[in-house]
């Protein structure tokens, strides 16, 4: 039964976002002494929260970069079998084009993960994802871990602090992280349209195409091979990927002031005053949900107010024309559900589910109380530590970012990139960046959208299974 997943071998974040563990550190480490680091990793693998646990106090998960595998001493022939996106990293010239990491978001300007400097991509080897139910618990747990960094042969490059904000809101003030696919075969259940084959998120299982995603098989013997399972496809090689996945991490600064100032300006009254309701409405049209999380397609006129995680809905039945939730809105274009291009609803859902991601991001920086039209100046930098999990970075994360989010021609649009994450700095105004609101009798368009999010760092990681993490300590 290859589809019955051993959830105890999965790192817990594949199955849960640790919603009750509100505080977190994402700690980027450099390996300074491989021998010590391997022993430390083995010890760590016994502490890692697995898929059957539901931690209520603290949790830790661990991911590693390609340079990290190299630093641990993995043989090049074995590294070669990891997917190209992971091996090449996030900042190749081609990837900069498709991810729109240009101008202010160019890797040269990144805080970490860029081409040069003390926090460059070459210095980042391991990512610890450390969670605690509150800041005190987190600090205590982290300090215990940190005591062993030095003897474990690792050094902190960056320690990124974050949290889940009140009401699960991201920094612009919208309830976030609602739409999540549910992995078949894990025992979890959800709406039928959200049930996705495990191979989209976990290596070693079949995906939505009915085939196994490419997985790193070991070409050369190295370490304690008994810790790994065999290739499901019968090559006789060991599969270090099984029960693991790839993790995408991007630190995105959110320009809250720019965001709400723009909404206010575009929706002001004839006298030039702020029209609070209109400003919130415009922002919600761009997001595709109200600040409370309620989807526009269900509540096109007003925010019903109560916080909502409503996710079991589509667009085909009630909003084929985009009159409720604009085609170009962030949530509709990054998850078109049953309106993928002009396909029929059922086929659309099937096609959309070939490009899903599990989102595990968290906010950073001090959130202002109820961000909105009249309160939008945070105290210092705020943003999102965007994290997602997927088995095929090219066909999932990069596809969503490139083909859906950054594309100005999504659906039948002309000059409309994703208003939330797809606009660029546009210093000289040479690119038209607009947002079209489908309406009667004519569509409304807001123009000259500034850049609301700026990428500040990023890298691709491998999130091994717990047994593979243990194995890495033996190579």
């Amino acid at each position, binding site marked *: 039964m290859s589809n019955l997943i051993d959830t105890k071998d999965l790192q817990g974040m594949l199955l849960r976002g640790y919603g009750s563990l509100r505080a977190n550190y994402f700690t980027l480490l450099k390996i300074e002494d491989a021998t010590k680091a391997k022993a430390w990793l083995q010890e760590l693998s016994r502490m890692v929260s697995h898929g059957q646990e539901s931690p209520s106090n603290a949790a830790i998960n661990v991911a590693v970069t390609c340079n990290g595998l190299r630093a641990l001493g993995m043989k090049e022939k074995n590294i070669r*079998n990891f997917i190209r996106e992971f091996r090449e990293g996030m900042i190749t010239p081609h990837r900069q*084009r498709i991810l729109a990491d240009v101008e202010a978001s160019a890797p040269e300007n990144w805080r970490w993960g860029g081409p040069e400097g003390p926090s460059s991509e070459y210095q980042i080897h391991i990512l610890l994802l450390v969670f605690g139910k509150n800041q005190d618990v987190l600090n205590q747990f982290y300090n215990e871990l940190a005591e062993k960094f030095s003897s474990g042969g690792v050094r902190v490059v960056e320690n990124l602090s974050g949290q889940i904000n009140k009401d699960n809101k991201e920094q612009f003030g919208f309830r976030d992280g609602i739409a999540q696919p549910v992995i078949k075969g894990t025992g979890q259940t959800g709406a039928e349209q959200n049930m996705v084959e495990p191979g989209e998120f976990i290596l070693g299982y079949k995906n939505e*195409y009915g*085939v196994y995603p490419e997985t790193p098989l070991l070409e050369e013997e190295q370490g304690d091979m008994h810790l790994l399972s065999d290739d499901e496809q019968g090559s006789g090689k060991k599969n270090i990927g099984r029960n693991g996945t790839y993790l995408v991490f991007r630190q995105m600064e959110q320009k809250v002031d720019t965001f709400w100032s723009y909404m206010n300006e575009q929706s002001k009254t004839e006298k030039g005053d702020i029209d609070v309701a209109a400003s919130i409405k415009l922002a919600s049209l761009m997001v595709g949900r109200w600040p409370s999380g309620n989807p526009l397609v269900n509540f096109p006129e007003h925010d019903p107010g109560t916080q909502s995680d409503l996710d079991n809905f589509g667009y085909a039945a009630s909003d084929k024309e985009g009159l409720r939730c604009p085609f170009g809105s962030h949530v509709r274009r990054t998850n078109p559900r049953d309106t993928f291009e002009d396909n029929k609803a059922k086929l659309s859902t099937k096609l959309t589910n*070939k490009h899903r991601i599990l989102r595990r991001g968290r906010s950073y920086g001090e959130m202002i109380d109820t961000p909105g039209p009249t309160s939008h100046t945070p105290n210092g930098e705020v943003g999102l530590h965007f994290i997602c999990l997927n088995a095929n970075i090219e066909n999932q994360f990069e596809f969503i970012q*490139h*083909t859906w989010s950054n594309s100005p021609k999504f659906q*039948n649009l002309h000059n409309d990139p994703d208003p939330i994450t797809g606009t660029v700095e546009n210093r000289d105004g040479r690119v038209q960046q607009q947002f079209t609101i489908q309406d009667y009798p*004519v569509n409304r368009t807001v123009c000259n959208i500034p850049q609301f999010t700026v990428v500040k760092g990023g890298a691709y990681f491998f999130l091994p299974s717990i047994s593979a993490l243990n194995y890495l300590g033996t190579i």
Partner: protein
Amino acid sequence: MRQYALTLITTIKPAQVELLRSTLYQLSDSVKQKLRALGTVHYGRFVIIDETNLDGQYTDAQLIYTTNADVDPDKHIADICATMSVELDAIYAFCNHYQTTSRASSLRAMKIPEMAFYQGSPGRTVAVIEQEKALYDFLWKIKQDGNWKGQSAIAVHQQLRKAVLSNPNFDWVAQPVDVPKINWLGLVIFGIVQLAVAPFIILWAIYMQLFHEQFDTPLGLDINQLSDEHITTMQRDEDFHFQNQFSQVIDMKPGKARLFTVNLLYFITRILIKLLFVKGKLMGIPTIHFARWVMINDKKRMFFESNFDGSWTQYLGDFIDKSGWGLTGIFGNTKGFPRALLLILKGAYNQQKFLAWSRHTQIATQIWFAYDPEISIKNINNNTVIRNLLPKNLNEKEATKLLALI
């Protein structure tokens, strides 16, 4: 108005391939500028097909030049000889069968036929596409600047129509452009003929399965097993514009049965392109500007090229999702393709192997020209719908539909 395909091929002189390659890259901007200045060329490219060993025989490297133009091939050849002779001479100096004293006839002699040629915007010239884009921009601006609150769609339409028809820049709008329609009668007849010959096709598919397909040797690689260098070379030219290009050379599987099968599939493709794929979708895929299939080297190899919107991943993914059977039917006759079953089953549906095969057989395009590389084929076709609807008298529902496109 018809769009004409032109395909020229010639061999490259021994040991001159690398010089030609660097010359093409050097001349890229100037060639593109001159093709653009003609105002009749939708898309064009120069592609080097490297030397190879084909069934044990050494085969020279070749240079392919292709265009989609609004003028017939002879006129287009005359045009380029008149306006870019310097570039042509520099490029073809490395090739055989080219005389600077008789450029046009040298080029005409290089012409080979296309086995199938699909266009996403049939019936429209470069000039028409540009005009319609200007019309869209004009209408968009009026829409944007006006206050339409409380008005009916009919009222808005009438005002837009008046603004356009009273503007001498748009006097051409009064005449609709003639775009082909789906030929339902033809499709019915085609369907009946298909039904009549279906038993023979099924028998043929069984024969192919028993005596050919099961002995095929697929490439068998996943995309990660391809050379990183090759993928990097392909990606170096990708995603600078909204449109992208794809050029591919594949060896045919040997034998007359394969040739017969591919010719049958070409024939069906040609008919469907004429009858059905006239609305900007090729087998349901709405992002393809054009595609063409050409047989080269005594039909021992196939050259395929296309222009598409968006990413490579989306383009190839669309093929798998929407027309894996069609792809398998044609490309299943080429070497290395994922193993097919009964001509159209399996094959391309093996996602990893199909994507790997596609990348593996893709070749670099040294000069790539698109008149407007930022416009999508959906934009082009929408603009035509707007242009043809605008001058008409519309009811509320029709007017609403029109305005939704702006």
